[in-house]
């Protein structure tokens, strides 16, 4: 069977499976729609959280970014896993004990103010919408390759499917579907990684393969990679930091506390039976996530090596990278390159007109490399590879069997769809429940609430799809901005709500607004107002990018969080302390005993 045929078959089977489960578990009441009746086992909940978590950013985009960033890419790995330690210890058990559906409800009750809950809804919407833009970018990559269409057509088709998908089941459908999705996506990620690790190093585990010697030699894979990339003018793979040590540090902080503040992840911990389970569930979630996250560095480094080797076989044979016959001829390029050219995400421009592909860093500061390139008649790097395609193209680059390539396509689609669906749910519950029902239309019926939720989903997906056509960054970069927004607004508010008995509503509200505000300001100055191209206003700040201590906008959430805390404590002093019953509420939240199954919030 042809590659396309097998891909349709595998994707078709996995989709039939998800839809079957969603239909079987179709949601009835509102409560089931949002939290699956509060009775999901911690291990299953951990798996579902894993699928929810590992989105297009983790699955499709992250390894490609690491392949490009080298050591500095570790900030994604540490940031997106280390946050679970914070989540497990600082938030999950207490929010579970508090026992309401959503984050804005906690903020509203703890800070005894509908205003605080509305501000929390705004923060949540800002973070979730940005997150979905990143997902739609990934959805576009996955669908364009899968259907062999252009990237924008891929996004339009993806929008339709994500919407149908999220409206179908609600949380219960989603929890069990996500267990199935986790299984598909983890297989899709690890199987090709095992093949490739075996090919390159003879060690089947990519976690060990990355630290092994190249098969049949006594040169370590990372040493080889370091040498190849530096020869071609790129930064040294194992030591290249992300801009600066400070930037890498705050970027990691931002992703970690953003993880602990992202509403669609926190909501997961409302669905376990007990406080005790909320703690261990975070651990199980991280186990399932770690399987992918410890595989990713191997995928990244090996894909990078294979990519260079594809366009220049001297990489593996050890010949002269700059001799003319070692750059492959464009007409002899492998089939996978042709397939990706269709999507517009891989491009070749024959700058020196020799019909061969030269791929190197033409902006390197290493004069020796530039001299060699000039001597060889190279007039600029001729291949541009969108970083988001690396994982999906990886099995094709390594010339793996067709069923593996099909499996990866299915995994990419599963990753993109599951997270987009989870996020849409968080958005729809925030709008229909926290905003409409609690604030504007108290007598809204259950049915009306569900309908409002679905309309909210439809609107947010159209908006995200539109912005996804011109994304502010690669999928994982856009998602990192969403984490920054959550880090600067929701995380501090939740922390203060649990760990400070004296924090009052004025402090919390001022903190959230200033944290979110300053982060948005910094991000929009670089990326455009609401990410619309051409509206960036860096000029106001001297025109230089990363003007605050050289910190990039994606990493600014950590600074926003510091501002949030500082403003909250400053403002707190000017206003009266919270009432007695709030102090008791905080005391009761801190103690597990007396937790109930999450009941109706109506």
């Amino acid at each position, binding site marked *: 069977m042809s590659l396309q045929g097998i891909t349709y078959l595998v994707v078709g089977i996995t989709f039939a499976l998800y839809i079957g489960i969603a239909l079987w578990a179709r949601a009835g009441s509102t409560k089931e729609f949002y939290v699956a009746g509060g009775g999901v086992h911690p291990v299953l909940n951990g798996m579902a959280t894993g699928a929810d978590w590992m989105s297009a950013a983790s699955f499709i985009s992250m390894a490609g970014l690491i392949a490009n960033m080298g*050591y500095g890419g570790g900030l994604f790995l540490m940031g997106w*896993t280390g946050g679970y330690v914070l989540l497990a210890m600082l938030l999950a058990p207490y929010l579970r004990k508090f026992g309401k559906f959503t984050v804005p409800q906690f903020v509203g009750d703890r800070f005894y103010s509908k205003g605080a809950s509305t501000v929390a809804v705004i923060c949540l919407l800002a973070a979730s919408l940005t997150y979905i833009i990143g997902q739609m970018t990934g959805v576009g990559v996955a669908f364009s390759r899968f259907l062999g269409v252009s990237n924008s057509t891929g996004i339009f088709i993806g929008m339709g499917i994500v919407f149908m998908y999220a409206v179908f089941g609600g949380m219960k459908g989603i929890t069990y579907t996500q267990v199935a999705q986790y299984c598909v996506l983890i297989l899709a990620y690890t199987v090709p990684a095992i093949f490739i690790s075996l090919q390159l190093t003879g060690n089947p585990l990519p976690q060990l393969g990355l*630290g092994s010697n190249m098969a049949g030699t006594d040169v*370590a894979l990372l*040493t080889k990679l370091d040498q190849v990339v530096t020869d071609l003018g790129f930064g040294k793979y194992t*030591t290249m930091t992300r801009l600066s040590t400070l930037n890498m540090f705050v970027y*990691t902080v931002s992703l970690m506390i953003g993880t602990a503040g992202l509403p669609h992840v926190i909501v997961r911990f409302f669905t376990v039976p007990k406080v*005790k389970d909320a*703690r261990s569930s975070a*651990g199980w979630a991280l186990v399932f996530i770690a399987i992918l996250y410890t595989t990713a560095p191997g995928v990244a480094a090996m894909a990078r090596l294979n990519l260079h080797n594809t366009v220049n076989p001297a990489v593996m044979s050890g010949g002269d990278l700059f001799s003319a016959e070692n750059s492959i001829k464009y007409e002899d390029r492998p089939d996978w390159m042709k397939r990706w050219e269709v999507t517009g995400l891989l491009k070749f421009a024959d700058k020196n007109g020799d019909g061969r592909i030269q791929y190197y860093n033409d902006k390197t500061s290493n004069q020796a490399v530039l001299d060699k390139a000039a001597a060889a008649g190279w007039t600029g790097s001729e291949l541009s590879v969108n970083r988001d395609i690396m994982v999906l193209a990886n099995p094709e680059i390594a010339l793996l069997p067709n069923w593996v390539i099909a499996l990866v396509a299915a995994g990419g689609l599963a990753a993109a769809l599951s997270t987009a669906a989870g996020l849409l749910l968080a958005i729809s519950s925030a709008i229909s429940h926290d905003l409409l029902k609690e604030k504007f239309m108290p007598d809204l019926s259950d049915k009306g609430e569900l309908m409002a939720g679905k309309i909210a989903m439809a609107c947010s997906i159209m908006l995200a799809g539109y912005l996804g056509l011109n994304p502010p960054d690669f999928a994982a970069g856009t998602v990192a901005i969403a984490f920054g927004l959550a880090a600067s607004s929701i995380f501090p508010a939740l922390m203060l709500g649990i760990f400070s008995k004296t924090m009052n509503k004025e402090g919390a509200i001022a903190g959230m607004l200033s944290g979110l505000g300053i982060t948005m300001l910094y991000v929009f100055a670089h990326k455009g107002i609401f990410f619309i191209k051409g509206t960036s206003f860096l000029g106001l700040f001297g025109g230089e990018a990363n003007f605050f201590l050289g910190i990039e906008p994606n990493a600014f959430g950590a600074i926003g969080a510091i501002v949030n805390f500082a403003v909250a404590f400053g403002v707190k002093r000017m206003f009266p302390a919270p009432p007695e019953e709030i102090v008791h509420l905080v005391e009761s939240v801190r103690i597990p005993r007396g937790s109930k199954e999450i009941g109706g919030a109506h």
Partner: protein
Amino acid sequence: MQHDSQAYWKATLGLIRNVLIVWFVVSYGFGILLAPMLNNISLGGYPLGFWFAQQGSIYVFVALIFFYAKQMGKIDEKFDVHED
């Protein structure tokens, strides 16, 4: 009871602090700040700092959460605030 719940909270915060110290040292310490130094040591084919940033810290995080959940269970029982 008031006294007990204060002691319980103190024990909880103590545990959180200890876990956070390890959490910080493996990721921000070994993975970022000390990475250039640790890279002089190799772990198989891995430079050690690179290994902490891309592998080691993740393994430690997983262990930390289960350690925390277990210790927290013990603290709950000791102060008689556990569920059921």
